[in-house]
């Protein structure tokens, strides 16, 4: 287990946050913290901290990048 600290750039829609959380919820996982913020009318950012190993984090990453509304995921060390 390690702390993962991600900054997700996404579109600002009613479902964006739900879709981000879906990758955790469907695995029965929780996150340490989420900070979702509107950037402008169309865009948002989401800071996400969660504890998982590299393999699990990699799988979550794959699920997230498949989403239409996710533009970029930056791993904040």
């Amino acid at each position: 287990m390690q702390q993962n600290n991600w900054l997700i750039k996404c579109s600002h829609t009613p479902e964006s946050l739900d879709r981000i959380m879906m990758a955790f919820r469907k695995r029965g996982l929780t996150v340490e913290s989420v900070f979702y913020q509107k950037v402008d009318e169309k865009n948002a950012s989401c800071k996400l901290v969660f504890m998982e190993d590299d393999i699990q984090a990699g799988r979550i990453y794959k699920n997230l990048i498949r989403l239409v509304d996710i533009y970029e995921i930056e791993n904040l060390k």
Partner: protein
Amino acid sequence: MKIKLRGADYVVKILELLEVDSLFAYPGGAVLPIYDALANGNVKDILVRHEQAASFAANGYARVKGKPGFCLATSGPGATNLVTGIADAYADSIPMVAITGQVMLHLIGTDAFQETDITGICLPITKKTYLIKNLDKAAQIFTEAYEVAINGRPGPVLIDIPRSVQGEYIELEENWEETFVKPVLKRVYKATEQDWAKAKALVAGAKKPLIIAGHGNLLSDSWKEIREFVDREQIPAISTILGIGVFESDNPLYFSWLGMHGMKYANQAVQEADVILALGIRFDDRITGRLKDFAPNARVLHIDIDNSEDNKNVPTEVFIHADLKLAFQNFPLTRNAENSADREAWVAYLNSLRAQFPIKPVDYDIFNMITAIDVLEKLSPDDMIVATDVGQHQMWSSQYLNKLQPNHFLTSGGLGSMGFGFPAAMGAQAAAPDKNVWCITGDGSFQMNLQELITCVQEQWPVKILVLDNNYLGMVRQWQEQFYSRNYSGVDLLNPNFVKLAEAYGIESAEATNVVELADAINKANKCKGPFLVHARVLKEDNVLPMVAPGASLSETIYYPANEVKDFAKKKLNLEDATKQLAYKV
């Protein structure tokens, strides 16, 4: 000059501008304004008898037509009944637009009558969902939804429209339709010269390269390109089940399909290959078997439209993020003087494997599902479209149908939804009215959506149905036999008289208990201008082989029992005789 349009009329007009010609739908309170508008519009609404059939039919339509299928349901139970079909489309990457009515905007969240959070329910099974709160956004939402459905990895989207929004009025420019832009396919191409250089080095250096071709080749309409590529490179190829039709089955470089019930020689090819070219596949667990032992000697080149597939299940050495159609245009020549002999030897070896582990010959002395499927294909046109349900008949259809053209084999691969076949066949018939469309189904699967018989009558769709009836849920029974000591539980099916049932729906039908009766029935069906049901009473207990047991490796593919294999040569003779006999009789 401004005009005023009611929301429902506006939505139907948008559907017309998106060139929706078939809307598989079922009415209800929350879509009454849309139905009112449909009565005056040019979109043909097809009244199914259960919303699940609407979403499966939209799926079948999309696969055959090569454009998104549209379905419509009311709020609450209507919307939730669409869910399995939407999930099926998501699993198999089928472009679809599902439209649902919703309770009035001000009632959302009050637990109103027939209110469900359908956008929430569909989050994990759609590419995107939309709730139209404001008519001003309707055209933008529909065009974006359509664009999302067709672009990138295709898939379903859902648009939820509150009834109050359908009844509101919008003021528009008189010429608004002229400014409406229907979205077009934008093919993804993110490969670099470096990617291709790596790919070329990998493939050119291989002694035993193997192509695995998946559904992506059909979805991207690149089956011509892959056939040319295989011919140019002289690299042997296999496919996934959803990739059936990519290659002609008599292509000498095509070695059928792999996986749980794939050919033993195809599975063996994977295990011995030193480079795998994975083209438009997602390495589903049904094709990999035990993942850690999948293709132990192979380095992998993976080309896919979805970059989330890169290294998802199988370690990939080179990943090319591109639509296959564009990828084939750019794939450098890898065949050269040094590797040509290796490829030739590899193909010769695979041919020896194919000769050693052939698929079981059809035995006309036994009236089983295999015989029935074989007879159906022999007596039907080359361009027939087949939709299957899920179970043993699905696997045998995949194994024994040999002349399927691209996008003419519709099966629920990812989700494995029983009940898919018949409505998918309806969708296919709507998309291709002049084609011979057959639904091959089991007695279990068919009873999940048989209410649609009357839809075929009402729509005058000449869909043909072959019910392979063994009075069992055959695949579950097989697993109980193999893995639960024959402790049969919940698999014995008491069935209705399907022939009389068809008659009750006004559909011509025939029963078959042997090959000759079946041939007569299929000939009658193919000549019949309307729908036709053939009820084939087949061998009760029979197992689909080859098989990779759950948790086993492809190297452990179970072949037929030795005593059966010994008789293969004899059966081949019988097959020729029987075929002649059959041809004479029909």
